[in-house]
């Protein structure tokens, strides 16, 4: 049985004859999957579209930025969080954000609910721990505040599959830094050394203060981000370019969120 949400991935496979599922169940009109709650803790249903992420307060600025880079209006009107999560492409634009937020993927089957930290959800390109009898019903995360951003490198602003993507979350109240990297490894990667490096700087200067990072600190952060990547050469870019662009994006992301409180 194959599940159909927005159709932006599955329909391409059907149109090109790459998949011929015997049964397709369309879940795009299940209202229970379209819920969105936030009161310090965000619960987003799998059926929330990218367009809704842009139109509504979704409790993550980085997620909104990521949603805006997805495809085109036509794609954003139908594509969903749940589709992005369940498809588990390393280039899925919302996924580095979920990683950086330490989000939890919520799965449900007739046996009940299962909550899997995003870090343990994806196991390879388009592979994850969802069982055949389970449905991704949504994702949850703690509202991490305003200091967060998403960046994506590609050949144009619209309709582009990321050559590399990066989400940075500085949760000042919980005193944690999250860095999620997309399109530069078999799964979404966390740049844990870069996270530790940035956390130590915030720890030293005070988590709740505006700070101006030194050039050397920014450079080092970017370097540590790039070393976390496990990129390959492919049609979209080379491994060397991916490492380069991740270092640049890391540096820019940190300088962007540094003053956000």
């Amino acid at each position, binding site marked *: 049985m194959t599940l159909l949400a927005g*159709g*932006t991935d599955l329909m391409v496979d059907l149109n090109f004859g790459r998949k011929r599922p015997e049964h397709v169940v369309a879940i795009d009109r299940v209202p229970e999957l379209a819920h969105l709650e936030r009161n310090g803790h965000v619960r987003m249903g799998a059926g929330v579209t990218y367009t809704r992420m842009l139109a509504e307060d979704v409790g993550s600025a980085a997620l909104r930025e990521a949603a805006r880079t997805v495809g*085109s*209006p*036509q794609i954003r009107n139908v594509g969903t969080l749940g589709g992005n999560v369940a498809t588990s492409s390393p280039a899925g634009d919302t996924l580095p954000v979920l990683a950086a937020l330490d989000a939890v993927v919520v799965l449900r089957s007739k046996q009940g609910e299962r909550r899997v930290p995003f870090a343990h959800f994806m196991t390879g390109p388009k592979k994850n721990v969802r069982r055949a009898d389970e449905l991704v019903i949504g994702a949850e995360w703690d509202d991490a505040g305003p200091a967060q951003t998403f960046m994506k490198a590609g050949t144009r602003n*619209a309709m582009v599959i990321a050559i590399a993507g990066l989400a940075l979350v500085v949760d000042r109240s919980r005193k944690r830094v999250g860095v999620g990297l997309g399109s530069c490894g078999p799964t979404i990667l966390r740049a844990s050394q870069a996270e530790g490096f940035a956390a130590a700087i915030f720890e030293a200067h005070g988590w709740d203060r505006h700070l101006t990072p030194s050039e050397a600190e920014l450079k080092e952060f970017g370097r540590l981000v790039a070393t976390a990547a496990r990129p390959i050469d492919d049609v979209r870019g080379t491994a060397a370019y991916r490492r380069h662009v991740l270092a640049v994006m890391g540096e820019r992301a940190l300088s962007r969120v540094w003053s956000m409180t």
Partner: protein
Amino acid sequence: MRLRLQVNGSQREAEAREHESLLTVLRERLGLWGSKNACEQGECGSCSVLIDGDLVCACLVLAGAAQGRDVRTVEDLAAGEHLHPVQRAFVDAGAVQCGFCTPGFIVATAALLRDNPEPSDAEIREALSGNICRCTGYGKILEAVHRSAAQGYTS
């Protein structure tokens, strides 16, 4: 499967084969050839239609999943021989070259102006970013959208 849906304001029925897209049903069963079939992967926007008011690529809609929905194609815009203001603006601006992408651009423009009657250049570029013109006539297309907006067009 037997598909029943609203197309351009009329109740229609059509046979949809397994794995077939709404675009195929519109073109091959219902004789609505305005929505063009090109990339079949949602990249080009030539098959743009409105479903329940939302701009979507008909090639990415599984026909069976469109059961009961309200579909509006480019054919819904003109009133007989009388062109819709967006169509008129595209003609007047010379925004049509080979014409293949035009229906998609017209549907996307109508959807944009419905929601944002006075878009800026940047807003137009973003709203039409899912439509590709291989003749690269974007300058004239941008002009056509401004002309439509200037005519005070609202859906």
